């Protein structure tokens, strides 16, 4: 199984008349492409594109629900595109029981542990409304701050788990979450070397950054030891 590429979406892009409040350090905003698709566009630096790319591709491999991702190709400076999820709200503990894919939360934690993402805050969970009343689909967004975007900094962390300080204050590990996080960690551990290297290659090509070999080695190491890293991360969450 190949990991696929990151699409390049050609412009022109139309900016929304109403600027929705999309939070983020890099001032994301809503655009519509020529095919009328709605995207959140972020003018990210290379390290942000690298982090989003690895997070999105590895997330796919682990079964994490990440909105369609792409790069805008309408100017010299690359912009990051993430499909806008309509009819959604952000993290809400009272609606956890209404999730149609609760297993996604555990997988999300495993992904965050591996890519060292310390920015899983309230707005980085999306609960999309479904056709059935009071049912939601959980998506993971915004991985631009994950340390995987800075390969040497990630290498310096060794096999350390991230700190869960940005998680919503009322976030708690519930039934089934640990099992799905562990299953995702085992999936990462058992992934073929070539697949992990392919993720790095595709992400590096998208971001245009260096340190390909450093990232390959550190990501391979973190995937091989994912069960331990994820276990440490879960323990840190429990200990908050």
């Amino acid at each position, binding site marked *: 199984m190949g990991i696929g590429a990151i699409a390049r979406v050609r412009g022109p892009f*139309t900016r*929304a*008349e*109403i*600027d*929705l*409040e*999309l939070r983020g350090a890099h001032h994301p905003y*809503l655009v*519509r492409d020529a095919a009328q698709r709605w995207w959140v566009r972020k003018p990210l630096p290379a390290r942000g594109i690298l982090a989003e790319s690895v997070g999105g591709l590895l997330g796919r491999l682990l079964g994490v629900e990440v909105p369609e991702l792409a790069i805008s190709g309408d100017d010299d400076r690359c912009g990051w595109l993430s499909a806008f999820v*309509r*009819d*959604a*709200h*952000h*993290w*809400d503990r009272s*609606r956890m029981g209404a999730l149609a894919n609760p297993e996604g939360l555990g997988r999300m934690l495993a992904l965050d542990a591996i890519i060292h993402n310390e920015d899983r805050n*309230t*707005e980085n969970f*999306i609960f*999309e*409304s*479904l*056709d*059935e*009343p*009071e*049912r939601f689909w959980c998506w993971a967004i915004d991985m631009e701050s994950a340390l995987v975007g800075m390969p040497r900094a990630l290498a310096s962390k060794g096999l350390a788990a991230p700190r869960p300080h940005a998680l919503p204050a009322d976030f708690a590990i519930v039934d089934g979450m640990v099992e799905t996080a562990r299953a995702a960690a085992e999936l990462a551990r058992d992934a073929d070397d070539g697949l992990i290297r392919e993720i790095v290659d595709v992400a590096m090509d998208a971001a245009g950054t260096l340190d390909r070999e450093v990232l390959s080695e550190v990501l391979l190491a973190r995937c091989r030891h994912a069960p331990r890293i994820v276990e440490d991360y879960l323990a840190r969450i429990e200990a908050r």
Partner: protein
Amino acid sequence: MKASLRQLRLLQYVADPFTGRCVSLAALIREADGSTRVILAPTTPGKEELGSVRTANLLASLQRDIVELDAFERLPRSFGPQLILTAPEPAPSDEPADWVWTRLGAGAR
């Protein structure tokens, strides 16, 4: 209508950010003593008006949270980006039910 220190903001759902089409869901009124009250629109928009059953489901599920709003300055972070508040504006001191419902009915853009 008498002027007062009372202020008004409309809570709207941005149905299409590219055309600017919004649907008004409720009014937030800040009273002179600083308290906030919520007045819901007389009718809840249905899927025909909203264009999607998912949108209708989302708004129906948020109804209880909207009723419980107690802050005038901003919406809870959980509400998501398609719910917005209009800019604060002075509101009449008269009993709000009638004029608020008129505003809410005319609030769609």
